[in-house]
């Protein structure tokens, strides 16, 4: 991850900032240049729900360079309807099941060596409360 790109992604990575379309009201995450529903191009920032349900998961045996192992990937349906691709954390893969309730936490995502930056962003863990 290049530092400049990480800077641009701070809103979605650290605060789950997506968009609400000023024209049709549709919510989307991640942010896009045009609305997926009506193709309008003006938006307000709209923070996605930080709680959701596991739609699917997979334990990646050999994670990419810069990522720690084991890596449990997941698709999570947030309570506002947004679906997000993410890592699960604080849980063993054999304890994960589809339908499990999870919540967002901010964690170290990757270390890309002396030339790169420490990338922090969202992961999801089993809901505590």
């Amino acid at each position: 991850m290049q530092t400049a790109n990480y800077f641009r992604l701070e809103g979605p990575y650290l605060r789950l900032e997506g968009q609400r379309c000023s024209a049709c009201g549709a919510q989307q995450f991640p942010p896009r240049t045009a609305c997926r529903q009506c193709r309008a191009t003006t938006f307000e920032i709209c923070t996605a729900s930080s709680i959701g349900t596991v739609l699917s998961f997979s334990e990646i045996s050999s994670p990419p360079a810069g990522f720690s192992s084991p890596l449990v990937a997941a698709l999570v349906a947030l309570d506002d309807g947004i679906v997000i691709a993410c890592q699960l954390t604080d849980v063993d893969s054999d304890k994960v099941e589809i339908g499990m309730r999870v919540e967002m936490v901010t964690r170290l995502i990757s270390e890309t060596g002396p030339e790169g930056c420490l990338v922090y962003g969202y992961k999801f863990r089993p809901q505590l409360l």
Partner: protein
Amino acid sequence: MRDVYIVGLGLTPVREHWTFSLRNLGARAILAALADAREETADCLYVGNMLSGQISAQENLGTLLADETGLLPIETCKVEAACGSGGACVRSALLAIAAGAADRAIAVGVEKMTDVTADAVAAGLATASDQDFEASFGLSFVGMAGLLMQRYLHESKRNRADFAPFVINAHKNALTAEHAMFHSEVTLEQYLRCPMVAAPLGVLDAAPVCDGAAAVLLCSKEALKPHHRPIRITGSAISTDTISLASRRNLSSLSASETSAKKAFTQARLTPHDIQLFEPHDAFSIMTTLALEACGFAASGTALDMAAAGAFAPTGSLPICTFGGLKGRGHPVGASGTYQIVEACLQLRGSAGSNQIPGVRRAMTQSIGGHGAVAVTHILEA
């Protein structure tokens, strides 16, 4: 739009080619396709490739291969649609001829993957995904396929073992295909016991990393010669879906695969029932399943039942992966789409040797980039 025919076929064996580089492989396939059609040159050359910039630090592939084959100053460029690049370059060549801008066009898919480590290949393949919202979170390309497979298992209440017939069939068909990467059968036992790479997806669910190139020479009706054995392209379509899996409306159907197949069927005035042979994008066994359902060859949720009943074997109602598919022949990513088309043409010509499916007149190929993000469908008729 003018009619377009395939008159020349060329391919290299799919291997770990230690002695051949990207340029050697691409050039050999081009020259073989020209020789097959007994043509000296063409009006344009489209190169399908995904990873050359990352793996071989080489772009400008059109010029590279034109120079390597002595085709300068031919019009040329590279076409990229991730793992669907091979299919996409054939569509570009078709468009040039259909539009009347060219009478003969070469499409070559080429990929050189084995010069670098598995990590570097994985990083390259991940560029087919959404870099900022999938790959940057450690979700590898194979990991995304694992997510699709897990969801399909959940929704259809299946077991992983139900995917085995696809893998067993692919390897069996590859046994007698000289250009295929693998010449070894896979048993159900081996499939069930293979190591997981992105559970529930095992190493035997995934097509191998390899090198290869395949090329076709396309021409207009006006450019056909008596010695040509033309195969007509009656359907050709590309459709797209969201680049990230998370944005899909339905995780158990491939809408790009469906819409590109529908467009191709409409152009060819055919239905799925008319197709006698299908070369799907079986990069992962879950992708074969989803593509068969999306294209209308199996009703939603029934592809695994049909596979268990032998419908997709050489003697079944719709033979697939007739030279091993991506799984058995190998998946040199940007070349796989052109291998599919060369293989379908061999079948339609009746030149498929031990792999011949008798009496094939209408075949379909589908090359997919990303996990269904872009799909390229071709219908070919003898």
